[in-house]
C-alpha cells in the first residue's frame, strides 16, 4: 500500500522506536503492542468508499493505540500513511465528479453542481479522521491539553493536514468547467427580484457551509466577487438606464443594504456572532462594492450623457448622481472623452442647425456646471464645439438673434432668470473675489474659470472680440427698425437697454443713434406732411451709424421722382443745412393697379413700382430696354423687380427676357405665393457683419498681393506685421490666417512650410 519511500521511513522510525521502547535492550513484548496499535490506527484512518461505512471502534482501544503510537513517535508515520492512502483512493471521488460534471454539461443546471458539492462534503466527512467523534471522546492526544504540548498541536496538525490534502485532491479532480457551474450556482443563491424590497428570503446557509468545508470560498474568491459585481451591474442597468428624472444612487444603495448585504454575509461574514460583528467584518467588502456601484452608475450615465443633456433640466437628478459618483470614482477624463465623441458624432456635423448646436452647447454648459462647478470639464468639452461654431457662418447671427429675442420658435438660449451681467473680460483675475478657488488639478494650462451664470458671455467669447457681435447686432437692429411699420420702437428700445448692460454703453451708442433716427424721421415727416402732404414717408438715417446698406440708385420714372424731389425740397426748407440722399432700392411702394379685368393694391419694392410705371406707358419691355431706361441698375436687381410683378400676375415673361403686361389675367401657372414672399421677405439690402468683414478683407488682398509680388514667400506673421501699415487694417493673425486659407482654396496663393506665396 505504502510507497517504498514511506516504507523505508516507517522502517527507520520503527528502529528508533524499538530502541526507545527497550531502552537499548532487546525485547519483543512491547513490539507486539506497537504493531497492534499501528494496525488499529491505520484501519481507523483508512479512507473508504462511501458505500463501506466506517466500523464502530471502541474509543478506548483507539485511544490506547494512538497513545502508544504517540509514545513511540510513530504518529506522524501513521498520518503520512493515511495521506498516502487518500491519494490511492482519490479515484473513487474522481469517478463520481466525472459523472456529476457530465450531467451538468448536459443539463446546465447549477443544482447538479450543488449535489456534487454536497457529495464532496460527504466524502470529506467520511475521510475526516475526527469527523465522527465528539471532541470529548477524542483520543487525549488530539485534545488540547496544556500538559502535553505535542498532543495539543497534534490534533490540529492531523486535521489541517487532512483538510489541505483533501482540498488539494478535489481541486485537482474538478475540471475547468466546474468554475462555470460554481459561478452559476453562486448566482442562483442571489436574491433575484429587483423590485420586491419587502421580504428577502433567508439565504441558503447550508450550501455555503458546504462551500466553506470544501475550501471553495477561498479558492473561488474572485469568482464569487465577480458574481456580486455582475449582479450589481445587471441591477443598475435594469433599474437606472434611461431613468434620469430621479436620483437613483440612493435607491441602489438601499437595495444593496437590504437585499445584497444579508446575502453577502454568507461569504464575507462567516462566523460573525451578531449583526454588529458582521457589519464590522464586511466593512472593507462593502466599501469595495459601494465603489463598484458608483463606477457602474458612472459608466452608465457617461454612456448616456449626450441624451441626458438633451433632456436637461428634467435630467438634473441624473447629473447629480453622476456628480456624486465622479466624486468617488475618478472617471472625469472618460466622461470628457465620451461626451466629446458623442458631440462630434451627433452634433458637430453639417446636417445640424447652428441654432441646435448652440442650444445643445448651452445645455452642455448648464449640465456640466451641475457636475463640475469650477468648469474644468466644460472647458475640455466645449473647445471643439466652440471651434466648430466659430467656423460656421451664421453663428453670430444666431446668437445675436437670440440676444434680441428674435428666435423664431420662441425657445431662447438664455433663461430670463439668467443674471444680466456685463461681459466678463476673460484675462483679468479678480483677486478680491471671495468665492475664488484654486483651479482644479485636472485643469489644463489654458483653463480659465468661467464666471458662472453668464451663458451669453460664454457664447460671445467664442469669438476673440465682441466687435463682430456688436456689428451683427447693428445689422439686425437695422433690419428690425426698418421693418417697424407702426412707429412703435419700444421693444427695440428695451432690447438696446438690455444689451447695453452686456456690451457696454459705448458699443451700443451706434444703436442709440439708429433708434433716434427712427423717431426723428417720424417727427420730420409729421412736419413735412403738415407743410405739404406727401405720399412719401421716409426713414432718414445717419450714415456711418447704420450698417452698410445697399447703395447705388436708378433713374426713377418722372412721377416717382417728382414725389421724391418735392419731399427733398420740404426737408431742406425744414433743415436748411441738410439735404437728402435717397436709397432708392430700399423701402416699398403701395400702388393700386387698375387693369381691364381687375384692380390690385400691392406693396412692391421701388424697383418694381418704377417698372409698373414703365409698363403703364408701353405694355412690352425687354430686360435690356428696362436697364437702358432705368440707368445705373444691375441686372439681378431688374430680374428681382420683374419677378415680383410676375408673381403678382401683373407681368408675364413672353419669351426669354421679354415681358408683357397682363391687362387680362391669365391662369396662374404655379403657386405664386411662395416665390413672391421669398422675394419680398428678404430684408432690404443690409449686409451682415460677416459679409462686411469679408468685403473689407478683399480690400486688404491688394496689399497682400503687392507684398508677395515684391517679396516672394512670406510667413503669416510677417504678412500680418506689414499689413498693419495698410490703412484701417485691424485684423488679428487668426483672421488673417483664415483669410489666407480661403485664398489658398481659391487658388490665389500656395502655402509651403508656413510660407505663403502667390500662385503663379
Amino acid at each position, binding site marked *: 500500500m505504502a510507497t517504498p519511500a514511506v516504507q523505508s521511513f516507517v522502517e527507520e522510525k520503527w528502529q528508533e522506536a524499538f530502541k526507545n521502547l527497550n531502552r537499548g535492550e532487546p525485547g519483543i513484548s512491547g513490539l507486539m503492542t506497537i504493531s497492534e496499535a499501528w494496525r488499529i490506527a491505520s484501519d481507523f484512518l483508512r479512507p473508504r468508499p462511501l458505500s463501506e461505512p466506517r466500523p464502530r471502534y471502541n474509543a478506548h482501544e483507539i485511544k490506547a493505540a494512538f497513545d502508544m503510537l504517540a509514545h513511540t513517535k510513530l504518529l506522524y508515520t501513521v498520518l503520512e500513511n493515511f495521506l498516502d492512502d487518500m491519494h490511492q483512493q482519490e479515484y473513487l471521488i474522481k469517478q463520481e465528479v466525472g459523472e456529476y460534471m457530465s450531467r451538468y454539461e448536459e443539463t446546465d443546471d447549477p443544482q447538479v453542481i450543488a449535489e456534487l458539492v454536497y457529495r464532496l462534503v460527504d466524502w470529506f466527512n467520511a475521510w475526516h479522521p475526527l469527523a465522527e467523534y465528539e471532541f470529548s471522546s477524542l483520543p487525549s492526544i488530539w485534545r488540547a491539553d496544556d500538559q502535553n504540548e505535542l498532543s495539543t498541536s497534534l490534533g490540529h496538525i492531523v486535521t489541517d493536514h487532512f483538510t489541505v490534502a483533501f482540498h488539494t485532491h478535489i481541486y485537482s479532480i474538478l475540471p475547468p468547467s466546474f468554475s462555470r457551474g460554481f459561478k452559476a450556482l453562486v448566482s442562483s443563491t442571489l436574491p433575484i427580484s429587483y423590485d420586491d424590497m419587502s421580504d428577502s428570503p433567508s439565504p441558503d446557509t447550508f450550501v455555503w457551509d458546504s462551500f466553506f468545508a470544501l475550501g471553495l470560498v477561498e479558492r473561488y474568491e474572485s469568482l464569487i466577487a465577480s458574481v456580486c459585481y455582475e449582479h450589481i451591474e445587471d441591477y443598475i442597468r435594469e433599474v437606472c438606464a434611461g431613468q434620469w428624472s430621479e436620483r437613483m444612487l440612493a435607491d441602489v444603495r438601499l437595495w444593496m443594504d437590504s437585499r445584497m448585504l444579508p446575502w453577502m454575509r454568507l461569504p464575507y461574514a462567516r462566523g460573525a456572532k451578531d449583526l454588529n460583528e458582521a457589519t464590522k467584518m464586511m466593512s472593507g467588502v462593502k466599501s469595495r462594492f459601494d465603489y463598484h456601484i458608483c463606477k457602474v452608475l458612472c459608466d452608465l450615465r457617461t454612456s448616456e450623457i449626450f441624451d441626458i443633456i438633451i433632456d436637461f433640466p428634467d435630467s438634473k437628478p441624473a447629473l447629480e448622481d453622476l456628480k456624486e459618483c465622479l466624486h468617488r470614482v475618478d472617471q472625469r477624463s472618460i466622461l470628457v472623452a465620451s461626451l466629446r465623441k458623442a458631440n462630434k458624432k451627433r452634433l458637430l456635423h453639417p446636417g445640424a442647425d447652428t441654432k441646435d448646436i448652440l442650444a445643445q452647447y448651452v445645455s452642455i454648459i448648464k449640465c456640466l456646471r451641475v457636475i463640475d462647478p469650477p468648469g474644468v470639464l466644460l472647458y475640455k468639452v466645449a473647445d471643439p464645439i466652440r471651434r466648430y461654431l466659430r467656423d460656421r457662418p451664421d453663428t453670430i447671427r444666431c446668437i445675436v438673434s437670440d440676444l434680441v429675442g428674435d428666435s423664431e420658435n420662441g425657445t431662447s438660449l438664455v433663461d430670463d432668470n439668467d443674471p444680466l451681467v456685463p461681459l466678463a473680460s476673460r484675462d483679468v483675475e479678480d483677486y478680491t473675489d471671495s468665492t475664488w478657488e484654486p483651479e482644479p488639478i485636472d485643469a489644463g494650462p489654458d483653463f480659465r474659470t468661467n464666471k458662472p451664470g453668464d451663458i451669453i458671455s460664454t457664447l460671445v467669447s467664442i469669438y476673440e472680440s465682441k466687435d463682430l457681435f456688436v456689428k451683427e447686432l447693428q445689422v439686425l437692429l437695422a433690419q428690425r427698425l426698418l421693418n417697424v411699420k407702426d412707429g412703435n420702437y419700444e421693444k427695440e428700445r428695451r432690447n438696446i437697454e438690455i444689451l447695453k448692460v452686456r456690451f457696454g454703453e459705448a458699443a451700443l*451708442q451706434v444703436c*442709440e443713434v439708429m433708434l433716434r433716427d427712427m423717431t426723428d424721421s417720424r417727427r420730420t415727416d409729421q412736419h413735412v406732411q403738415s407743410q405739404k402732404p406727401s405720399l412719401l414717408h421716409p426713414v*432718414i438715417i445717419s450714415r456711418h451709424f447704420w450698417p452698410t446698406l445697399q447703395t447705388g440708385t436708378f433713374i426713377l420714372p418722372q412721377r416717382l421722382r417728382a414725389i421724391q424731389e418735392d419731399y427733398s425740397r420740404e426737408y431742406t426748407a425744414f433743415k436748411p443745412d441738410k*439735404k*437728402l440722399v435717397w436709397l432708392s432700392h430700399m423701402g416699398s411702394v403701395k400702388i*393700386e393697379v387698375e387693369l381691364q379685368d381687375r384692380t390690385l393694391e400691392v406693396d412692391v419694392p421701388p424697383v418694381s413700382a418704377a417698372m409698373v410705371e414703365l409698363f403703364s406707358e408701353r405694355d412690352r419691355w425687354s430686360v435690356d430696354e428696362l436697364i437702358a431706361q432705368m440707368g445705373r441698375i444691375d441686372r439681378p436687381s431688374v430680374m428681382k423687380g420683374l419677378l415680383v410683378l410676375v408673381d403678382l400676375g401683373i407681368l408675364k415673361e413672353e419669351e426669354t427676357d421679354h415681358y408683357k403686361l397682363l391687362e387680362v389675367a391669365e391662369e396662374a401657372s404655379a403657386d405664386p405665393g411662395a416665390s413672391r414672399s421669398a422675394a419680398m421677405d428678404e430684408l432690404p439690402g443690409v449686409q451682415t457683419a460677416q459679409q462686411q468683414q469679408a468685403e473689407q478683407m478683399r480690400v486688404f488682398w491688394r496689399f497682400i498681393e503687392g507684398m508677395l509680388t515684391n517679396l516672394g514667400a512670406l510667413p503669416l506673421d510677417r504678412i500680418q506685421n506689414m499689413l498693419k501699415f495698410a490703412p484701417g487694417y485691424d485684423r488679428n493673425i487668426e483672421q488673417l490666417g483664415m483669410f489666407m486659407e480661403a485664398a489658398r482654396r481659391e487658388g490665389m496663393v500656395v502655402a509651403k512650410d508656413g510660407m505663403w506665396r502667390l500662385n503663379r
Partner: protein
Amino acid sequence: MKVTIKSWNAIAQWRWDTGKADQDDADEEDVCGICRVAYEGCCPACKMPGDDCPLIWGECSHIFHMHCLLKWIGTGQSKQLCPMDRRPWVTAERKINPSKSS
C-alpha cells in the same frame, strides 16, 4: 393700365449741405479738419450726430464740427485763426438758398 401710388416708405440719408455738388455718395467723404471725423459723424465730445453736433462754416470756406472749432478757438495757441489756413476765423452767414440739388 392705370397706376395710382398710395404711399411710399423710403429710406434716405441726410447730408450736411457743404455746398459741394455731390451727386454721388461714392465720393470721398468729407471729414472735419480738426477731429478727422466725417461731418455726418459727430465730434469727439458728442454722441449724437446731426442737429446735436452741427457744422460751422467759415468765410474761408473751411467747415468744421462746430464743437471742434469752438474748442480750438478756445485754446490760446489758436489765436482765433482757422486751423487749416491760419487766417482769422470768420463764421460765414449760411445762405438761405443752398446749392441746387441736381
